[in-house]
């Protein structure tokens, strides 16, 4: 984003690496606003309890409890599913696009957007399962070798949906976890520092403190912020985001083409997939704005989520609001002009019929509120932004209800035109799924960093003078090799630096010593692109693995569709050809995204030699700060020719402004 964006700096100029880490990790480690959290959690828990009661009754009595014994067979079910998956798609798209565009301010928004995508998908994913009459047979929708000798119908959008939602969940979990991984390491190190302090003070809670550090440590999988780790991490993060963006388009059009492909008035329009996608992204941004504002206010993160962030979110909402207004206008224009009496009747029924309230809520919620964001003052007012976001979310839900219910109530058989009214159990089901979402969201806010620490630190290094100053100040002290050479077997030599530039210079200086007897690596709290040349890692890429995974997965799934439908289970349905390849492409693409994502994960682990909970690098004194504000060089001994003294001399001899370490140590095995 250029300087044209109003509202001041993207990060407060006095932010430092350590300050960011402290501000964000304070939330999971010390739980500020504990009482408010418990009150909110009790409310969310109550809704979750309502969900459990509703599901139990649903299992006992069947889907008829939703008052859907009429032509509106889905009741609120598909509307809720579409809304949740829309929110998930929107959030995922926002975070993915920000990541791919390299918007440097994304740290404040990305984590929340990724979390929303994950949690909304979890809520959405339950709907297709619970609306089956016998939900325990949900796996019948998946292709697996069964005793019926049948395959699922690969030409059916129902199967596409099943594959889509599984892929979507995998990608959401993956994007969320990859982004979280280095932050988990920061949390682990801070929790460990606290546990050590408590152990020294013999505090009664020291056992719990250590356990907490270990739990974070397990999830951090031994992340050490090594230059090689970071290189793969940056690539993996971006590639999964790309897969996610592609999948969003596939999922949203899949769901809407199902409706548009039918001959129902009000659905049968080529504009429907477009307006579905626009409204999905719109509601995703709306909910993201609400949650970001909430976190900002409750946890006082004004320094990291600055007015400029609000401004950007506001502009995004305004753009999408205009796009949504265009979709409504185009739909009305098209319907009136097309001359189809049925479609015109649906339009009139939407605006004046039994469900007119729903339609007006949709139109007014999606189109009008965003218009106040033309004003720069409204854009930077957190309350205004949150209110608009909330209204957009409500409007998007009403839109789904409008599209589904108004068309369905007017069945083609006049005898089937029974009235449908939303009943209590339908509302309870939706409220319960909101409860599930809120419960998980509150747990996330309590135990995990709500704002990306890594991205905020990168932003601080680029933009905040304090962070840059801090790095310069620390180098001026001279360093000498430690006087007491360790008697124990040697793992290697380490050196500490205050900035990436120093680390890169030092690595360049010692890289001549040769890779045959010393394995060099850098460690730091942010990605270390400047060290890669010295480490000889330049050009290493995760893309071949991602590409191979996606292509193999997609081709494999396509082959499965062809084999099942054209050879193994020939089944004449609706006169469709045996080789209905266009309908096989949709689930194959979804599956390809999932396979690529899994391949990226495997590559991330294998190429980085992770998970590795115990590693000699952790023996480096002060290494906890490798996830905070220090940069470390490690030279690992390889064979007998390793000459620690020579490396130490070379490091100590570097000029103060170009790579001289703060500290040099020998590290025992």
């Amino acid at each position, binding site marked *: 984003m250029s300087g044209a964006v109003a509202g001041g700096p993207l990060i407060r100029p006095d932010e430092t690496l350590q300050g960011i880490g402290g501000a964000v990790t304070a939330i999971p480690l010390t739980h500020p606003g504990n009482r408010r959290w418990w009150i909110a959690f009790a409310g969310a828990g109550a809704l979750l309890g309502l969900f459990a009661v509703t599901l139990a009754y649903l299992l006992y009595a069947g889907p008829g409890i939703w008052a859907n014994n009429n032509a509106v067979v889905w009741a609120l079910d598909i509307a809720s599913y579409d809304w949740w998956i829309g929110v998930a798609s929107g959030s995922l798209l926002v975070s993915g696009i920000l990541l791919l565009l390299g918007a440097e301010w994304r740290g404040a928004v990305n984590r929340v957007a990724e979390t929303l995508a994950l949690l909304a998908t979890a809520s959405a994913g339950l709907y297709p399962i619970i609306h089956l009459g016998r939900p325990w047979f949900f796996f019948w929708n998946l292709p697996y070798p069964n005793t019926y000798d*049948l395959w699922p119908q690969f030409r059916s959008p129902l199967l596409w949906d099943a594959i889509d939602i599984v892929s979507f969940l995998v990608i959401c979990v993956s994007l969320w976890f990859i982004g979280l991984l280095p932050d988990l390491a920061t949390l682990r190190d801070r929790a460990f520092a606290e546990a050590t302090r408590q152990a020294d003070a013999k505090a009664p809670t020291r056992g719990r403190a250590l356990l907490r550090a270990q739990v974070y440590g397990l999830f951090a999988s031994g992340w050490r912020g090594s230059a090689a780790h970071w290189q793969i991490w940056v690539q993996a993060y971006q590639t999964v985001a790309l897969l996610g963006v592609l999948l969003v388009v596939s999922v949203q059009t899949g769901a809407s083409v199902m409706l548009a492909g039918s001959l129902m008035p009000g659905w049968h329009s080529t504009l429907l997939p477009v307006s579905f996608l626009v409204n999905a992204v719109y509601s995703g941004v709306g909910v993201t704005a609400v949650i970001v504002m909430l976190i900002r206010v409750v946890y006082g993160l004004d320094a990291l989520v600055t007015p400029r962030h609000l401004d950007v979110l506001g502009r995004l909402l305004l753009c999408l609001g205009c796009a949504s207004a265009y979709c409504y206008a185009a739909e009305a224009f098209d319907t009136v002009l097309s001359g189809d009496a049925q479609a015109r009747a649906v339009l009139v029924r939407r605006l004046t019929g039994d469900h007119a309230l729903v339609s007006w809520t949709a139109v007014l919620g999606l189109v009008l509120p965003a218009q106040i964001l033309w004003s720069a003052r409204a854009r930077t007012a957190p309350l205004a932004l949150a209110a608009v976001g909330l209204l957009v979310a409500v409007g998007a839900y009403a839109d789904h209800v409008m599209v589904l219910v108004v068309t369905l109530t007017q069945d083609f058989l006049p005898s089937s035109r029974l009235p449908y009214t939303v009943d209590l159990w339908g509302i309870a089901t939706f409220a319960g799924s909101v409860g599930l979402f809120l419960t998980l969201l509150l747990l996330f806010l309590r135990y995990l960093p709500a704002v990306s620490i890594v991205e905020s630190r990168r932003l601080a290094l680029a933009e905040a003078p304090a962070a840059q100053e801090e790095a310069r100040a620390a180098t001026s002290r001279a360093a000498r090799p430690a006087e007491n050479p360790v008697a124990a077997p040697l793992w290697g030599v380490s050196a500490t630096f205050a900035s990436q530039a120093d680390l890169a210079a030092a690595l360049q200086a010692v890289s001549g010593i040769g890779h045959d007897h010393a394995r060099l690596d850098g460690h730091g709290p942010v990605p270390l692109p400047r060290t890669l040349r010295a480490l000889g890692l330049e050009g290493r890429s995760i893309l071949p693995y991602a590409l191979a995974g996606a292509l193999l997965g997609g081709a494999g799934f396509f082959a499965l569709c062809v084999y099942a439908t054209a050879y193994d289970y020939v089944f004449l349905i609706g006169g469709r050809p045996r080789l209905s390849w266009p309908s096989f492409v949709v689930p194959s693409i979804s599956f390809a995204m999932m396979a690529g994502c899994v391949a990226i994960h495997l590559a991330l682990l294998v190429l980085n030699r992770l998970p590795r909970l115990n590693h000699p690098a952790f023996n480096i004194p002060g290494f906890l700060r490798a996830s905070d504000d220090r940069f470390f060089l490690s030279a690992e001994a390889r064979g007998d020719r390793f000459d620690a003294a020579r490396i130490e001399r070379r490091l100590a001899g570097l000029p103060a402004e170009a790579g001289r370490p703060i500290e040099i140590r020998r590290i025992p095995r």
Partner: protein
Amino acid sequence: MAQLFTPGADALYRLALMTGVACLVGLPVLAAGIVRSNYVTGVGIAPAQPLPFSHKHHSGELGIDCRYCHTTVEREATAGIPPTQTCMTCHTQIWTGSDMLKPVRDSYAQDKPLEWKRLNKLPQYVYYNHSVHVTKGIGCSTCHGDVTSMQMTYRANAFEMRFCLDCHRAPEKYVRAPDQVWNMTWTPPADQATLGPKLVAQNHIRGGERLTECGICHR
């Protein structure tokens, strides 16, 4: 700085990860295996009956025709379980004092049917008709196995959907000449490849397309 985890933690962590992956793969495989096992399908298991009736003795050794007891197999949907009277046509004359046959005589005297344990069951949602299968050339043993060799009767095949579909998709592999339908040791003759399609045409069996329509069995 001290390590947060001992070196052993790594081994445990990897073990746990691998166990997780193994469970992810192994548990569905295990479940699928259990569902297909004889323990669940009951194939080859002869349950205790009111008295130990032997198909091998009556049908195999003495040569009583299937239709002597299962009288409606050629005309009705069900083949029919014989009433006690059918047993007593012979057993009023032979083995009249046998202890083994006491339940049959009791049943006859009290006019209370014997309660046999049913072996070959189909779910309610499956429509099945014996007569059409038998008259179009599908033999008893194709589904019920060689009953004439069963001392105690057991289920020979699990009537899973794939069992039915196997034949409905390619009836020419199983269809028999009319005189072979009651042959309990029938195996496809050498000329089944030419005979099968001929019989299929002759009996107007429309395998593949018509017979695999859902509504053929699930009416």
